């Protein structure tokens, strides 16, 4: 227990250091730190609709982040959440616009199922290459992100484009209001129940089933898992499919919730932020939920900040980068002297 407490404390410390460094950069660029901080509090909590907006931004982070947790626990660096999120949203859009006069619950159900399947498929291709050929999944999932973004761009600028739309960024037509599970705020009882239910299911799967234990075993030591008769390839494929399914679901929730239509390149950072969220949450379900709400709050604050302090969105990307750079630092491995044992030297 002290071990996990230590990990929580060190993670909090590292996130704190990342914030400090980013604040220093802001301060050096002439922003008044106190204004930025009060702006963040206002934009994420106290302003009208700010708390709702924080939850709205936390929802995709949580869903994609849970997928990252499953993948990382099994030892797979599936960082393709962005692409899976996009193709999920795209498929839900195609179903909803293609069948726009269908019965609302049925269409939404079909659209969500399509999103989940598309997300898993987008993840299973790198997953299959990984378990079958040993192809590095970090690079393939990254490339699938770029391809997914282009699929979205194609749909919103081509077949699904809103012909009456103006402005520089292409956007699709709106889905019928009857299909939506939330209003523009992105938060409703249905959405919260859905996301909460998924989080509980993932928790049950990871912490209370044989499969959850198997994943961790495969992640820690695939060779030993194989010796114990575990089909490592099958476990790998299932975890890839589950990660993709969660990201695809996030895409559907985005469309049926706050979006109602898709815009080229919307939420471009959510996939990477979800990785940061999962790591800050120490790859636990509730930790990820807490981190998602925290980073969702920051996202919401950035949308309010232009009014308050003129802080641009890239500052948030910078902050996420800082956190990612530092969050996996292991304090115990700080060695000021040459390592003593050969085993230590090998991993130094």
């Amino acid at each position, binding site marked *: 227990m002290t071990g996990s407490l230590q990990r929580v404390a060190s993670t909090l410390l590292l996130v704190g250091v990342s914030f400090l460094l980013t604040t220093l*950069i802001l301060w050096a*660029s*002439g922003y008044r730190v106190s204004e930025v901080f009060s702006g963040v509090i206002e934009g994420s909590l106290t302003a009208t609709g700010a708390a709702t907006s924080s939850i709205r931004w936390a929802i995709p982070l949580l869903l994609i982040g849970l997928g990252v947790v499953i993948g*990382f*626990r099994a*030892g797979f*660096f599936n*960082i393709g959440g962005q692409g899976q999120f996009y193709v999920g949203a795209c498929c839900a859009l195609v179903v909803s616009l293609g069948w726009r006069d269908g019965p609302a619950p049925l269409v939404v159900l079909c659209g969500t199922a399509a999103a989940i399947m598309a997300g898993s498929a987008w993840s299973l291709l*790198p997953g299959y*290459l990984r378990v079958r*050929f*040993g*192809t*590095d999944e*970090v*690079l*393939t999932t*990254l*490339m*699938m992100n*770029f*391809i997914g973004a*282009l*699929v979205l*761009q*194609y749909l919103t*600028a*081509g077949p699904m484009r809103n012909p009456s739309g103006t402005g520089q960024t292409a956007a699709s037509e709106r889905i019928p209001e009857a299909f939506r599970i939330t209003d523009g705020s992105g938060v409703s009882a249905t959405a919260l129940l859905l996301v909460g239910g998924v989080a509980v299911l993932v928790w049950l799967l990871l912490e209370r089933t044989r499969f959850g234990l198997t994943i961790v075993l495969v*992640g*820690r030591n695939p060779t030993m898992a194989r010796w114990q008769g575990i089909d490592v390839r099958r476990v790998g494929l299932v975890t890839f499919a589950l990660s993709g399914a969660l990201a695809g679901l996030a895409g559907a929730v985005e469309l049926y919730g706050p979006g109602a239509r898709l815009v080229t390149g919307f939420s471009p950072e959510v996939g*990477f932020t979800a*990785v940061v969220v999962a*790591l800050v949450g*120490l790859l636990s379900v509730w930790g990820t939920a807490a981190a998602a709400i925290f980073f969702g709050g920051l996202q919401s604050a950035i949308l309010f900040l232009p009014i308050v302090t003129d802080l*641009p969105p*890239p*500052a*948030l*990307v*910078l*902050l*996420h*980068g*800082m*956190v*990612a*750079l*530092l*969050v*996996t*630092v*292991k304090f115990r*491995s*700080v*060695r000021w002297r040459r390592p003593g044992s*050969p085993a230590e*030297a*090998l*991993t*130094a």
Partner: protein
Amino acid sequence: MEQILATTLRSAAPLVLVATAGVFAFRAGIFHLGLEGLMITGAFTTVAVGEATGSVELGILAAIGVCMALSAVYWWVIGPLGANVIIAGLGLTSVGLGGTAFALGAIFDRRGSMFTDVVLPRPVSGTTSGPGVIVSEHSILVWITPLIVLAAWIVLRRSRFGLRMTAAGEYPFAARTAGVNPSIVRLQALLIAGGLCALGGAELSVGALHNFTENMTNGRGFIAFVAVIFGAWHPIGAAFAGLFFGFADAIGIQSQINITERVPREFVLMIPFVLTIFAVWLGGLWRRRSLEAEAGYAELREPDY
């Protein structure tokens, strides 16, 4: 055809420079996903310092300095501090992308992009027809890129330093037994990689173009990294892989002009990424033949939590 070849050289040069950087990192056993961030930092710093001082040479020197400093930070985080190489690398990329976009607003009060008059000299220019087009309008960096690749090959193959680097990457324990400190070797490799990324970024902003744009690297750092794997982490191999990706890019740009009527633009733009997946797949098959390299590679890819 001449136009395609010219565009190939222009698209390939930054890729080849950054791929050479990736080769150094890979040889030292680092799965370097921060190349993209270093590249964009190089592109921005060159423009920023170039604009401030009016000298492109100072801009490039400053870019090399900044990228080396960032590389040193990256080394410190993944080495002595024991952070995960991949996550920290992606973090470095985000710091680069976010930091440059932020600095563009904070320093120059611009959003999106910024034009610059400070550009690299172009040894041959003005040719508009015939085979001369192929070599025309290229910045000086395109011309010296082959020399840099050749130098990298000689350093890695012929110098004590290069051999130590490969040894430290493939089997750190053995290297340590032979009196080589793998950690220091990795720092040196990362510093060289940082400098080369700065050159790649500079070629992008002040070589091929006259501006810096937010996110202008657009995944090139990652594609360069794939070129390293495709080129079997050999400088010459990586350079040819970079040329190939440059060629794919040129075909994409060319067909965007000619055949957009029939093929949607987005599908043409997908080509490099689809090819990249094939490349990683094939490169991975290739890689698995080399068990020694596998040892060093696997050591740095251990999941940790």
